[in-house]
């Protein structure tokens, strides 16, 4: 059951399978059709229940006037809640900021994640420690993370980044005032980079080294090996990272609330923050539900878009 004994089998396995290409496929269809469904059933059923009840309630709330501070009032108002949500003056900016945040963090984490995973793919002294260290920012709680960055790193007077800038004779940057969205992107990317690293590191373990060596002997250089062998192998994990991050990044708001409060102006307001404003400041469950449904629509659009770009890698 250890890797040595398994690794000894692939050669045999390939020969055997090559000899009888169609037989396994035929053996699989008939009697095995019930089995896959049974295996999937628990996941599908539980998720369905978990999704359907809040969804139906949210749909219901979004069409009525329901403010926690005014109980008893549940009059049907049709699409008025939706209208109120999308006519918020910050709405347009929030959609743009949401997509910017999404795109920037995904790009940063994937690019640096792949780079770092490749870097630690070969053995070197202290590799084990480095791998654990690289994953560690993911363990910090988002609120602690936000406060850490806001006070200890980014404050233009007593933050560490400011001190470093002064050390080099430069003017400290007022991160949260002048570049609020970028600051938030930085914080969130820092927290999600370890996630991407972890997935890529794990995936690189299954990279076929025989193939790599053979390509090297055929005269391929490092860049070609990367482009034609490594990158396609990483196609699926990249797709997984992108899709999972998309889901989480859509609802980022703890970092924003703690650091910039959505401002200055609406420069760091995103859709989740708008929903939060309605749900937990106004306690208007009706409008918040409408906003939540809108967020689902937005996420679906983003998903369709992303699937078009990287979807085939999932197969």
């Amino acid at each position: 059951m250890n890797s040595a004994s398994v690794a000894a089998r692939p050669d045999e396995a390939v020969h055997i399978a090559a000899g009888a290409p169609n037989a396994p496929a035929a053996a699989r269809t008939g009697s095995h059709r019930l089995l896959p469904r049974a295996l999937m059933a628990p996941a599908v059923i539980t998720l369905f229940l978990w999704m359907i009840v809040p969804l139906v309630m949210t749909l219901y709330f979004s069409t009525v006037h329901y403010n926690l501070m005014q109980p008893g009032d549940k009059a049907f108002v049709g699409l008025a809640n939706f209208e109120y949500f999308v006519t918020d003056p910050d709405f347009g900016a929030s959609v743009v900021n949401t997509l910017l945040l999404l795109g920037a963090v995904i790009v940063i984490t994937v690019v640096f994640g792949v780079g770092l995973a490749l870097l630690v793919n070969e053995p070197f002294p202290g590799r084990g420690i480095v791998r654990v260290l690289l994953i560690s920012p993911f363990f910090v709680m988002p609120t602690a993370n936000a406060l850490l960055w806001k006070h200890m790193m980014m404050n233009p007077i007593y933050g560490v980044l400011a001190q470093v800038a002064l050390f080099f004779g430069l003017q400290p940057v007022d991160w949260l005032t002048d570049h609020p969205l970028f600051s938030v992107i930085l914080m969130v990317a820092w927290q999600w980079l370890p996630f991407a690293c972890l997935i890529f590191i794990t995936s690189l373990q299954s990279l076929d080294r025989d193939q790599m060596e053979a390509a090297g002997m055929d005269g391929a250089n490092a860049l070609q090996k990367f482009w034609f062998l490594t990158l396609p192998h990483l196609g699926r994990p990249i797709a997984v990272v992108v899709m999972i991050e998309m889901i989480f990044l859509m609802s980022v708001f703890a970092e924003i609330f703690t650091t910039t409060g959505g401002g200055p102006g609406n420069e760091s307001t995103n859709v989740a923050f708008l929903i939060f404003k309605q749900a937990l400041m106004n306690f208007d469950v009706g409008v918040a539900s409408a906003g939540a449904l809108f967020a689902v629509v937005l996420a679906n659009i983003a998903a369709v878009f992303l699937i078009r770009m990287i979807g085939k890698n999932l197969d």
Partner: protein
Amino acid sequence: MNSKATLALACGLALCGAAASATDLVIATVNNGHMIEMQKLTPEFEKANPGIKLKWVTLEEGVLRQRVTTDIATKGGQFDVMTIGMYETPIWGKKGWLKEIKPEAAYDVDDLLPAMRNGLSVEGKLYAVPFYGESSMLMYRKDLTDKAGITFPERPTWEQVRDAAAKIHDPKAGVYGICLRGKPGWGDNMAFITTMANSFGGQWFDMGWKPQLESKPWHDAVTFYVDLMKKYGPPGSSANSFNEILALYNEGKCGMWIDATIAASFITDPKQSKVADKVAFAQGPYSATPKGANWLWAWALAIPAGTKNADAAQKFITWATSKEYINLVAKEKGWAAVPTGTRKSTYANPEFMKAAKFAEAEKKAIDSANPNDSTLLKSPYVGVQYAAIPEFQAIGIAVGQQMSAALSGKATVDQALKTAQSAADREMRKAGYYK
């Protein structure tokens, strides 16, 4: 259920019943120093009241407010005692969500500061007992003002403050003339800016509930604020709230600071402040009127109407806000650490006045703040630095975001006020205050 199961259940319940003769009080509170202290003194209460066990849920202010509001509005019943502010009390009291509090004579409810008692009552009925109260005041570095030859009257004008800031502003020496809040939030920057607008003669809503953010007093106040901060404030102000400025002040980087009176207890504490002995106090500055120039806030303990442990809850909240409790804290931690701003007897106590150098200024500030009369023109709302209407939180943060934009130069004052006005107008219209 079959009979065996029923029997088992009954036995289980009986056992539970036997074990649970103690009442568990679940208390939601904010994580400020005084509350933490109260938590530490839990054993004292439990000793004096056997049969009641205290269970604490401590959260940061914003999260606490969201949590308890969600619970009380959906009748979740998770808490027996809630720590709420002067903002929620009138609103929830009117809705009948809170139990009226009728303390015993020994509690001496008349000893409560009138401003506190009135702020926490609706139509004469007390709905929450104040645990800790505060106002706002000017805290300045006496060593710097002495060097520049400045003296402040008891309540300076805004012009005097600006001139002083200009004189002591010295970034090369690491001192900024004045530090003020800028982080968006109805209780963050807007608490301060509202008092400033009040003192310029402004108000949030006129008697017809129309927002007044484009009125002359607001325009003048915000222009003054932005100008003052641009010239004499520290960088990063638009993300600064209480804690950030406290850190700056304690490191000696602020020449002046206008904020909650509790700040005074931190900046005069040698264990955490470099400038502990160099601080002096004055009342909140004004321009057109001193009304509403300093705010009024209390953290108070209230009992949700749906709780099953009302008696135990009342025992607790009257214990925690009593004279005996204040004496207990004084014995354990010294007079400078007692929760202030609630009782006249505290301020009449010479040991307290000696230990807390800020006490006199603080009492003056609290006495001068009246939530029922805080604006030059008559207002339809209650509250000094906020309007006690449910819509205010969302309006406050939207306006706060715009003020932050003006402060950081991303929008002109006029643009910011215009956007703020339309945001406020939108919410008020939706809530049905006017068509």
